[in-house]
């Protein structure tokens, strides 16, 4: 009897491959078939089938020779197309970048996952140059929400969300500058980890805002997030933003539970400007954790404003030359934000960086009294594809920038966050909650996420697709 590997988490695939219950080639072939069958969802922009099958054969060969296999042996994964994949141009969601020469080597994190036995099966759709929270792409089409394909996947790592929620792969990587892991995790109903700023190497990925760019994994189980995270840890001289901190593997302590942890919900800014579903999800998670207290991050609105301005200016600076010479080849929605960013006074961004320093200190003081704080991941469930505006607390606002209004103040100071998916009976679409800790405490956010998963409070089912 054949094992239905396409629905398994990466950890179970690896166990089955190690035990010889299934071959890596069979796992990869099955994943490739599902990717093809569900391509209308717009998750993948490149499928690296030949490479994946060769890698799978190498794993099967290693097992046949009695060699030890890695923690992710045979598990298929895919990466947002701003990660370098050897032999492919790194398009970063753009039309312009696909004219670049092929990458000469894989991104560090791709190489590390493969060293742990995972098998890269392709590159994933994303919002152009990562300046997006919708998952819509003007050149490649939208990555659709598998739970309702007329709705957004969220962005900018939209393809990552679509691929995981539709069961194409158990593991994916994305980037998060202001929320681009956490927004698709929320809208697609999956688990996502944005580690501490400076924790994981960004080497050989296309940047957006150097001050805020993070990379991290998506999965349908917390254990898979932990295994991927552990495999990606380590120093890398190729990323100057990587912090000189000791690696902190988390998988071994994932089941420690939440006993003794000091937890609270974030109030103030994080308890307004959203639909009731966003706050009900936080309430449900807080209740399950026994987190009765409410605490505020002071001046969070100003943190969001400052992050927004730094993003506009740094993002524009990155693309100035392309805006001059290739303006017509941008997605107009992205181009016009970048043009505006190029026109802002320099003093604004310096003051925003000063405020960032102040906010980091202020939140450090708050977090002396708490191990974990909770906040909504998005202000609403997935909007419809093409929707430009939404109304929150009676104010009409743009969808594209404001899906990240709860994520932006957190990544502004680089705190680690696990996003967990919450479902409501009768609702087709999920919504996420951010589990936030002090810098470098990825172990805590994943422990709490795992405890919630074990209780059945949060889950990431594969979308029912006909």
């Amino acid at each position, binding site marked *: 009897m054949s094992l239905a590997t396409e629905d398994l988490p990466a950890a179970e695939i690896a166990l089955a491959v190690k035990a010889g219950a299934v071959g890596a080639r069979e796992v990869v072939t099955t994943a490739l078939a599902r990717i093809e069958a569900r391509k209308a969802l717009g998750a993948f922009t490149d499928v690296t089938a030949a490479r994946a099958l060769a890698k799978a054969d190498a794993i099967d060969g290693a097992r046949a020779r009695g060699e030890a296999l890695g923690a992710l042996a045979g598990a298929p994964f895919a990466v947002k197309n701003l990660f370098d994949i050897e032999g492919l141009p790194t398009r970063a969601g753009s039309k312009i970048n696909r004219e670049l020469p092929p990458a000469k080597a894989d991104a560090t994190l791709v190489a590390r996952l493969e060293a742990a036995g995972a098998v890269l099966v392709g590159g994933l759709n994303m919002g152009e140059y990562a300046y997006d929270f919708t998952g819509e792409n003007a050149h490649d089409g939208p990555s659709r929400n598998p739970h309702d394909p007329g709705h957004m996947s969220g962005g900018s790592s939209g393809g990552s969300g679509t691929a995981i929620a539709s069961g194409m792969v158990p593991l994916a990587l994305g980037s998060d500058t202001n929320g681009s892991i956490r927004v698709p995790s929320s809208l697609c109903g999956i688990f996502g980890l944005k580690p501490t700023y400076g924790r994981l190497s960004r080497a050989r990925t296309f940047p957006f805002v150097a*001050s805020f760019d993070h990379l991290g994994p998506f999965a349908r189980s917390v254990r898979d997030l932990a295994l991927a995270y552990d495999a990606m840890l380590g120093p890398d001289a190729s990323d100057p933003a990587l912090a000189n901190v000791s690696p902190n593997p988390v998988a071994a302590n994932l089941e420690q539970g939440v006993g003794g942890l000091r937890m609270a919900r974030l109030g103030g800014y994080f308890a307004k400007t959203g639909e009731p579903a966003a706050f009900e999800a936080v309430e449900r998670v807080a209740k399950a954790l026994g987190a009765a207290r409410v605490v505020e991050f002071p*001046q969070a*609105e*100003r943190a*969001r*404003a*400052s992050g*927004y*301005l730094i993003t*506009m200016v740094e993002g524009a600076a990155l693309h*100035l030359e392309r*805006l*001059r010479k290739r*303006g017509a080849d941008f997605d*107009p*929605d992205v*181009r*016009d*934000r970048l*043009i*505006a*960013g*190029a*026109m*802002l*006074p320099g003093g*604004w961004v*310096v*003051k*925003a*960086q*000063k*405020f*960032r*320093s*102040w906010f*980091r200190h202020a939140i450090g003081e708050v977090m002396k009294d708490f191990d974990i704080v909770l906040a909504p991941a998005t202000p609403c469930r997935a909007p419809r594809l093409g929707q430009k505006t939404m109304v929150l607390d009676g104010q009409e606002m*743009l969808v594209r*920038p404001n899906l990240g209004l709860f994520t932006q103040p957190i990544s502004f100071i680089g705190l680690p966050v696990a996003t967990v998916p919450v479902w409501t009976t009768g609702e087709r679409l999920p919504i996420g909650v951010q589990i936030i800790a002090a810098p470098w405490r990825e172990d805590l956010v994943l422990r709490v996420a795992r405890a919630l998963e074990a209780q059945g409070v949060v889950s990431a089912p594969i979308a029912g697709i006909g």
Partner: protein
Amino acid sequence: MSEPVFDANAIIEAMAPLLGFVVGEASRGPVKTHLEIAARYAALMEEAALGDHQEPAPVFTP
């Protein structure tokens, strides 16, 4: 000395040539909208009480 005045059209007219941008008619409205959002956020940030000795976050370590 005068109070700061925000005029998105004037910013576009002044800055586009300096930056080498052509802001077409279809772009002018969206660019203005984004400038207006930025100005609103900048006003909020301007009110932050930060001293002269507050270091910006990205401190360079040689």
